[in-house]
C-alpha cells in the first residue's frame, strides 16, 4: 500500500486584472508597508510599474523597492535587503520576478522574521518552527514554479557553497498570476521556462514520490504546456495562452514540490553549475534522454502521459505497447519545434558552452545531487556519463 504527503496552502490569484487584487490581499494580512524585491530586468521591462500602478490605483502606495537582485543571489544580498527592510520599517514582502528574486525574497523573509544577519544559520530542512512575515509573489516567467515551492537556494560566495533552505513556512501567502507579467518574455526564455515546467511535470509524474494529487496537477500542467507553448511562440502577445502557461508552471510547481524530481534535475543542476547555463535549458537538454534511460521503470506512467502530451486522437491511435516511446517522441518533436522557432539548443554541443572534457565532472556531480534519490532507476556514475554522452550531439 502506498503512502504520500501533499501540502500547498498558497492562495493562487490568477487571470485578468489579477494584479488589482494585491491591495486587498495586503490589507487582509494587515500589511501597510510592503517591500518589493525584484531585479533590474523586471524594472526595465516595465513590469514593476504595472504592479505599482495597480496598487496605487487601489489606494496603496508602495514606496520601498529593492530592484538589484543579481541572477545568482548571495548571502550578502539577502543581508543587505533585510537591513533595508528593517530600516524602512516594512511589514511584508512582495517578490516580483523569476527564480532569483523569489528565492532571495524567501530568504529575506526568514531573516526579518527570525532575526539576525546571517542567513546561513537557518539553512537546512525543518529549521523554521513558526510562521514568517506576510509574503506575496508575482512570477514573471512561466517555468520555475517557485511561487508554490517551499525551498530556496542562496549562494555562500565566501565558502563557495549553495545554501539550501526548506520549510513549509517559506511558502507565500498568495501567488498572483497575471498575463501582463509574462507577455513580454523573450522567445528563448519562454521556450526554456516552458520546458522547465514540462520537466517538473514529467518527473513529478514518473519519479518515486509520485502520488494521486501531484499526478493530477502534473497531468493538467502537461496538457496546458502541450496545447499552448508552441502557440505562444507563434503569437507571443496572446494573453490567454500566456496565462495558460503561467498556470501550468504553477501547477507543475505544486506537483513537483510534493513528489520531487529525478535524474533530469540531477544532471541539470550539475550542468548548470559547471557551465552556467539557464536551468530551463538544462532541463530541456536532458529530458528525452533520461526518459529513455528510465523507460522500463516508468513505462506505465509514461504511456499514460501520451494522452496529455499529444491529445486523445494520437493516444487512441497508438498501440498500448508503443505509447511510452511515442511520449518521448512527442517531447523530442516539441524540442525540435522550439529549436526552429527560437534556436533553443537540443544538444549539449548546440549550446556552444559545454566542453566534452567537462562531462566526467558533470557526471560525478550528478550522482551526488539530492534529486537522484527520487529517480526510479538507480543511476551510477557510468549511467550518468552514458546519458551525458547521448545528450552531447
Amino acid at each position, binding site marked *: 500500500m502506498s*503512502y504520500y504527503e501533499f501540502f500547498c496552502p498558497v492562495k493562487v490569484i490568477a487571470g485578468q486584472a489579477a494584479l488589482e487584487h494585491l491591495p486587498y490581499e495586503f490589507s487582509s494580512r494587515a500589511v501597510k508597508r510592503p517591500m518589493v524585491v525584484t531585479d533590474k530586468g523586471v524594472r526595465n521591462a516595465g513590469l514593476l510599474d504595472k504592479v505599482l500602478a495597480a496598487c496605487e490605483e487601489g489606494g496603496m502606495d508602495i514606496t520601498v523597492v529593492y530592484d538589484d537582485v543579481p541572477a545568482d543571489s548571495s548571502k550578502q544580498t539577502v543581508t543587505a535587503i533585510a537591513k533595508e527592510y528593517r530600516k524602512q520599517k516594512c511589514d511584508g514582502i512582495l517578490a516580483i520576478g523569476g527564480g532569483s528574486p523569489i528565492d532571495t525574497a524567501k530568504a529575506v523573509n526568514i531573516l526579518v522574521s527570525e532575526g539576525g544577519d546571517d542567513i546561513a544559520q537557518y539553512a537546512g530542512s*525543518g529549521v523554521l518552527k513558526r510562521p514568517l512575515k506576510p509574503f506575496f509573489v508575482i512570477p514573471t516567467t512561466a517555468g520555475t514554479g517557485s511561487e508554490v515551492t517551499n525551498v530556496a537556494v542562496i549562494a555562500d560566495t565566501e565558502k563557495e557553497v549553495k545554501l539550501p533552505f526548506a520549510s513549509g513556512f517559506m511558502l507565500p501567502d498568495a501567488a498572483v498570476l497575471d498575463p501582463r507579467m509574462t507577455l513580454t518574455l523573450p522567445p528563448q526564455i519562454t521556450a526554456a521556462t516552458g520546458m522547465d515546467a514540462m520537466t517538473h511535470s514529467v518527473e513529478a509524474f514518473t519519479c*518515486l*514520490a509520485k502520488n494521486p494529487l501531484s499526478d493530477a496537477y502534473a497531468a493538467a500542467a502537461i496538457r496546458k504546456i502541450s496545447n499552448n507553448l508552441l502557440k505562444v511562440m507563434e503569437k507571443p502577445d496572446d494573453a490567454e495562452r500566456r496565462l495558460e502557461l503561467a498556470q501550468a508552471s504553477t501547477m507543475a510547481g505544486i506537483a513537483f514540490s510534493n513528489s520531487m524530481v529525478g535524474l533530469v534535475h540531477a544532471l541539470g543542476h550539475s550542468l548548470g553549475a559547471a557551465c552556467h547555463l539557464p536551468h530551463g535549458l538544462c532541463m530541456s537538454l536532458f529530458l528525452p534522454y533520461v526518459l529513455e534511460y528510465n523507460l522500463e521503470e516508468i513505462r506505465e506512467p509514461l504511456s499514460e502521459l501520451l494522452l496529455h502530451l499529444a491529445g486523445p486522437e494520437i493516444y487512441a491511435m497508438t498501440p498500448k505497447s508503443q505509447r511510452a516511446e511515442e511520449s518521448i517522441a512527442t517531447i523530442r518533436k516539441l524540442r525540435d519545434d522550439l529549436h526552429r522557432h527560437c534556436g533553443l539548443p537540443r544538444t549539449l554541443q548546440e549550446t556552444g558552452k559545454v566542453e566534452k572534457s567537462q562531462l566526467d565532472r558533470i557526471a560525478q556531480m550528478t*550522482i551526488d*545531487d*539530492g534529486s537522484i534519490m*527520487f529517480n526510479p*532507476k538507480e543511476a551510477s556514475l557510468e549511467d550518468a556519463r552514458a546519458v551525458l554522452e547521448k545528450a552531447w550531439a
Partner: protein
Amino acid sequence: MIRERLRPLASQAKRTYVQLMLDVVGRSLEAISQVDDEVRGEVAVLPDGFLFSMQVMPKGPALFIRKQRDGSLQYLGGSVAQRPDLSIQFKHLHHAFLVLSFQEKTAQSFANDRMLVDGDLGYAVRMTRVLNRLETFILPRLVASRAVKEYPDNLGLPEKVFSAARIYLKVAMNFVDTVRSS
C-alpha cells in the same frame, strides 16, 4: 483484550529489533569500509572526523559512525555527545522498522517523507549508496532486492560470498571485543 495486553510487548519487540539492527548496521559499516574499495571510494570524499548518525526521532535508537584518518569508518555506538555533521532521522520507530526489516527500500522511505536529512544532501546521497552497497553484500539476493532500488547486475555470487564472509567475520570479532571490554 489480549491484543491490548500484547501491544506494549510488540512495541518493545519492535524497538529492540530496530536497536539491534542499527547496531549490526553500524558494525557492518565499519567492517565494509575496511574491505570494499568502492565503499572506501565513496567515503574518501567525506572530511576526516566526519560524524554520521542514523536515529529514530525524537530520542529513539541510533547509530553513530565517524570517518577515520585512514579512510575507514568507526562505529561509535548508539549515542555520542557531539552533534553529527550529517544525520538521517526516521520520523517514527515504525518507519525505521519498515526499512530495517526490508519491507521498504531506503529510497522509497525518503520519497514517502518518512526520513529527514539534517546536513549536506550530497553526503546523504553518498551514505545511502554505502548503505545500499552494504545491504547487497550481507543480505541474500532476494532480501537485498527488497532493500535497494536496483540489485547490481555485476555483483557475482563468488564476490558477494567472499565479501560477505569478510564483513560477517569482522562484525563477529567486533561484537566479541565489545563483550570483552564491557
